[in-house]
């Protein structure tokens, strides 16, 4: 299937069109917002503390008088960057391990999967918090930590998808030809499970976005003064009853991005004919 065909199939579904629009909009905002920011996102002002939305500050101001519109526009940049790179890490190691175990089979597969089961039984956010506490915050620490932790679910998906193919004639033929395992994995199996993994990758991005926002909310994600939706929500919750706009806008931005990614991934799965149920994380 060509890329254009898939994109057309995604956009022909209303949910897909909405999802892609939301995601593209967010990405453009993250990339271009620096050029069109109405105010300095980290400028504090005692005169502007907790101002309700107005013409000069359409989203209002926060507890230190900073412009919420400017902060909300920039607040997803770190999270999107970290989520994308961490997804790559997760997909690469998860796929490699999953496909390898499927092809080898036998005891290695059994023991390997039990280890993955054991690690998966620990709540992901807990693992991440322990490592963040030890290694510190910031993108350079978060990308490997999140990538390793979220890759566990990829192992299941990749292995399950590959099991459909390991006993097929073309794989057996390759083995009979004496080809190396790595070659079989990359040339024979990977092309067949690519679509499933692509959908899984899209879902990973949305889980990671939520995970990063949770970490920021807990103070373990992005460090101030970088505007970040999770931090903005954490800071504003104390004034929610009197100044709801402080949490409202970052919440709206975060949820629209996550909904967008989910809708797009769903439409993507339908277009590729992938069973989306396989993409549901064994949580």
């Amino acid at each position, binding site marked *: 299937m060509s890329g254009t065909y898939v994109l057309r199939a995604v956009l022909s579904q209303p949910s897909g069109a909405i999802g892609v629009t939301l995601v593209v909009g967010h990405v453009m905002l993250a990339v271009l917002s620096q050029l069109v920011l109405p105010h300095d996102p980290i400028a504090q002002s*005692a005169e502007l*503390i907790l101002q309700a939305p107005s013409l000069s500050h359409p989203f209002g101001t926060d507890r*230190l008088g900073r412009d919420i519109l400017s902060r909300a526009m920039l607040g997803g940049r770190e999270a999107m960057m970290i989520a994308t790179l961490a997804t790559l890490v997760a997909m690469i190691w998860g796929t490699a391990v999953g496909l390898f175990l499927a092809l080898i089979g036998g005891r290695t597969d059994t023991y390997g999967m039990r280890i993955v089961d054991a690690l998966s039984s620990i709540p992901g956010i807990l693992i991440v918090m322990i490592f963040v506490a030890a290694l510190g915050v910031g993108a350079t620490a978060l990308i490997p930590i999140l990538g390793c932790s979220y890759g566990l679910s990829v192992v299941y998906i990749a292995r399950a998808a590959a099991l459909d193919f390991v006993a097929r004639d073309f794989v057996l033929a390759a083995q009979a030809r004496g080809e190396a395992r790595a070659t079989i994995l990359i040339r024979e199996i990977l092309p067949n499970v690519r679509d499933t993994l692509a959908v899984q990758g899209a879902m990973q991005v949305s889980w990671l976005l939520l995970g990063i926002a949770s970490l920021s909310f*807990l*103070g*373990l994600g992005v460090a*101030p*003064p970088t505007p970040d939706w999770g931090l903005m929500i954490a800071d504003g919750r*104390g004034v929610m009853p*009197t100044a709801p706009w402080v949490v409202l806008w970052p919440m709206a931005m975060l949820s629209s991005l996550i909904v967008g990614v989910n809708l797009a991934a769903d439409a993507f799965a339908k277009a590729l004919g992938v069973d989306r149920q396989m993409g549901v994380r064994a949580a």
Partner: protein
Amino acid sequence: MGLSRHVLGLAAALAVGFVSPASAEKVFRQANDLSFGGAESLDPLSSNRFIEVVALIYSRLMREGENGEASPELATSWTANADATEWTLTLQPGVKFHDGSDFDAADVAYSLSRIEDPALESPVASVLGIIDRVEVVDPMTVKIILEAPHAGLPLLLLDYRVRMIPEGSGPTINENPVGTGPFKVEAVDAEGTTTLVANEGYWEGRPKLDKIQFTAIPDAEARNQAMLAGQLDYNLMTAEQAPLFADNPAFQVQSFPGGQWVGAVFRANAEPFTDPRVRRALRIAVDRNAMLTLLEGPDGGAVGCDTPVKLSDPNRANLECPQDIEGAKALLAEAGYPDGIDIELFTSDVSPGMVRFAEVYQAQVAPAGIRVNVNLAPSDGYWDDVWLKEPAFVTAWDGRPADQFLNEIFRTGAGNNESFYSDPAFDALLDKARSTVDVEAARALYVQAQQMQFDDGGTSIPFLKNGRRVLSGKVTGILPKPEEFIRWHMVDLTE
């Protein structure tokens, strides 16, 4: 008629139903902030003391009078000899401990001698280590003999940790907390619910409340939400939370000059803060007025030049210290940082405003080339794992008088010397101030000590904030004054 009997019966039942809550127990609900993550101790001298509870179950010899002066509590009167080296205290007769035993001079001698017990490592030792020994004159009289003269001893005895416990009870006081205070411990769970019950035999009269219940809520915003939801009768709050409770008859809002402060500590024994020029640069780059207005509002407190001494203390130094970006740059260049300096400042949600303090500090000092990386640490265990451990961290304190504060947090080797500041000249100045009987001369010395801290200390204290608390509408007997002024046996809940 049968029906009317039923109606009467129903009415009676309803009446009982309505009346009984009024005659039910009066339970006053507070939150404890779990400062020590569950390691709270009921030993008043412990540095992990369960702050909220200790003040209710143990009493002091003296307490704050109308204007913060020492006024009688378990000691009814006191006199000093001519050079203020020997103090004789007369005790309140008829006071009993929670276990029924009598309070007398031997308990005072024991409680005061514990302060210097090296095994306890109590931070109070740096303040009251000047006590040489305590002699029991008769059951109602004790004599405190000092190593050196101190004209202000009664003010030191106001320390909120110097509380009376039964003679010999120290080793077991945490498990068996027995004091003379208005409330007794029923159940303690610092991480869950702690219940205190009225001390029926309290010497100033039975408390009007039946119980005080503490629920552990470590997060400041969560405490605020619990207050809003009507689950608490008492809570401290910040300036920006005030509108939530104002004009609502279900709450009473109080504001008062307190002396609480949030500050940044740069440890003098950790690089790059070992250089006093760096420490000074980090403090003079702050715009104190702007910070006060941002964090507390224009009427939210009073700015100062890195002195922790509370406003009401006449020994507080009133210096001028406008923001000095150029001066900070010059000092950093002199110290070997011509291109500015990178520092990591730890903070946490553990006390209100600590995170925003770090954010404002970060923005204000940036023009001086001070690049602050704010590290948000979890609130659980912040005081155990971050405070005193990391090279730079945000701290929070309540207001205290000059002698106590200066000796406790700046004197060489003092238990709470969080900036690890050490200067023999500073210590000597404090010694001299203590032994100076003339009030004006002593004041000049305390002011000079604060000037020294401003010159090369490691603690940035831009302002002292006003205290604010919110009470449920039912609470009576709490005046708009800091905690130490509350007479808990007078506090009541009325419908």
